[in-house]
């Protein structure tokens, strides 16, 4: 029997008599940390967005105002918001399309060794260094890089040049074009889309697909009426990541992209040398709001069960 005399024994008795004590001991450190460090900072950010900066002195005016939020509607700022949301949408759509065949194959056909290969094949890029991934695309898209070389070798450079001369999505080279930014976003977030879609597809019982065929559906119809609807929660779950990550990113557009800024860059710029923390905070609040709405819709469509 355990000795009553030891300190450990007595504390253990206290835990048995008051289970809530043990629960509190488990919960208090992490909750305190997260509450103070994280929630506290978030609150500080939110608070800052209601302050404003005095245009002449450059000092922060600590009176409550909505003027800073009003600044978001200036054309140059509003453009940033629209641009970022549009990019997030495009990336999400493309990611869903590219991820689907990979996820489908991995979920339904890969067996044994191939399942491991596919699993690690998605995991490794997922956890690989983000910067290395972005950097690799800078190399690929450079004017003297491999992509250009490929087009030249295939005597298709004129196609590339024609594309690059399209305003908006083209540019001097791919690595300073909006298309380049899009490609890098797609590449970096792709694994985040593959995993939930694969998980959702794995949950579709084969018997359901067989039943569909049994009832007379062609494979294309089975895909459209049975598989896609069942995969949708997974797609939406993945889209949460791709959308949210694109909304806040400031490094990718800085390294591969034009001088037109996205929300992340605006936040970085305004809180940096400009010292306009209120405006930076206001910009930062926008992704939070957008994601809040997005998450609510996603939850209704059952995406949370697919996570």
């Amino acid at each position, binding site marked *: *029997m*355990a000795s*009553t005399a030891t300190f450990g024994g007595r504390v*253990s*008795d206290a835990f*048995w*008599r008051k289970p809530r004590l043990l629960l509190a001991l488990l919960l208090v450190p992490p909750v305190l940390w997260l509450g103070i460090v994280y929630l506290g900072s978030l609150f500080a950010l939110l608070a800052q967005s209601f302050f404003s900066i005095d245009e002449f002195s450059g000092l922060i005016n600590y009176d409550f105002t909505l003027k800073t939020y009003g600044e978001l509607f200036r054309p140059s700022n509003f453009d940033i918001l629209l641009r970022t949301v549009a990019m997030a949408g495009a990336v999400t759509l493309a990611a869903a399309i590219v991820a689907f065949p990979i996820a489908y194959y991995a979920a339904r056909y890969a067996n044994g060794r191939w399942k491991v290969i596919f699993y690690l094949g998605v995991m490794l890029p997922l956890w690989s260094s983000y910067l290395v991934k972005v950097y690799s695309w800078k190399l690929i898209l450079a004017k003297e890089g491999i992509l250009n070389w490929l087009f030249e070798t295939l005597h298709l450079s004129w196609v590339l040049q024609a594309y690059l001369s399209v305003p908006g999505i083209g540019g001097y080279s791919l690595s300073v074009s909006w298309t380049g930014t899009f490609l890098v976003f797609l590449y970096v977030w792709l694994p985040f889309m593959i995993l939930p879609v694969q998980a959702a597809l794995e949950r579709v019982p084969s018997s359901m697909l067989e039943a569909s065929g049994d009832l007379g559906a062609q494979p294309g119809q089975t895909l459209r009426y049975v598989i896609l609807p069942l995969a949708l929660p997974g797609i939406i779950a993945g889209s949460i990541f791709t959308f949210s990550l694109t909304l806040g990113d400031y490094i990718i557009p800085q390294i591969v992209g034009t001088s037109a800024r996205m929300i992340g860059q605006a936040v970085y710029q305004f809180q940096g040398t400009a010292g306009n923390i209120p405006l930076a905070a206001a910009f930062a609040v926008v992704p939070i709001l957008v994601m809040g709405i997005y998450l609510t819709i996603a939850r209704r469509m059952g995406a949370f069960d697919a996570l």
Partner: protein
Amino acid sequence: MASAVKFEATSRFFGDTRAVDDVTLEIEEGEFFAMLGPSGSGKTTCLRLIAGFERPSKGRVHIFGQDATNTPPYRRPVNTVFQDYALFPHLNVQDNVAYGLMIARVPKAERHHAADEALDLVALGGFSKRKPSELSGGQRQRVALARALVNKPKVLLLDEPLGALDLKLREQMQGELKSLQRQLGITFVFVTHDQGEALSMADRVAVFNNGKVQQVDSPLVLYDSPKTPFVADFVGSSNVLPVEMVQRLIGVAKLASLRPENIRLAEDGLVGTVESQAFLGAATRLEVAVDGARISVLLPKGAELPNDGSEVHLAWDADALNLLEATNG
């Protein structure tokens, strides 16, 4: 006979649910005691109160004369065999069995020896170095038993120990548990929802329903003289005759139970119509409609079987009719 376990007006509430409701019960030393009831009846909670995994909301729990209400499980002279066996997956069989001794700081050689002895006791000698994942359900159960017994507890608790075993194995284990208990002389308290198991193994049975104990008696008394309609129907199956019928039969306004096998067809007696019959092999069961109630009659093989729809007369010995307390508890 000393008292091994005593519940004194013990209750355990979970919010609004009265899992155990004012139970007073005494289990004697050296008994093989069964706690029987349907799921949710409170029997498992009572077992956990003895072990110390639950603390009473009201009342007290005594173990061998000592008030154990505020004693944690690791200080009670009680050990448990869990329903899912709860073997430690990261330890082999021998270390599993020796775990309690290891905690008590028994030196390695000594506790390994004791573990091996306990394994021999449950007919698992030679399994020492295996891992739980390599064992069958029946083998795991024996390991759980050895692990509990090696600590020489004063009370051994078994939580639905045979539920996961197939029929043959279950019957075999019933016999083994019974002889083990006789051999060791330890108080066994076991929980089951299977009344056949309780009746065949236990010295005394407590029948639980809705958190209360309806009756505590030996299996024979429980079977022949159930006190409440619930016990009458839960232990074996029984007819429960409505008050008006009993009033007409013997002039007492109470419910009564009547076992189907105690009823015979006669020239004279209670009049009824045969509704249906079912052939059960060793017997045939008739469903007879009597005055709006339905009575089951069990006729042995070879008895003359009436046709469906025909009129029959039911008779029985006077002491087969057992009066019940009105409340169902």
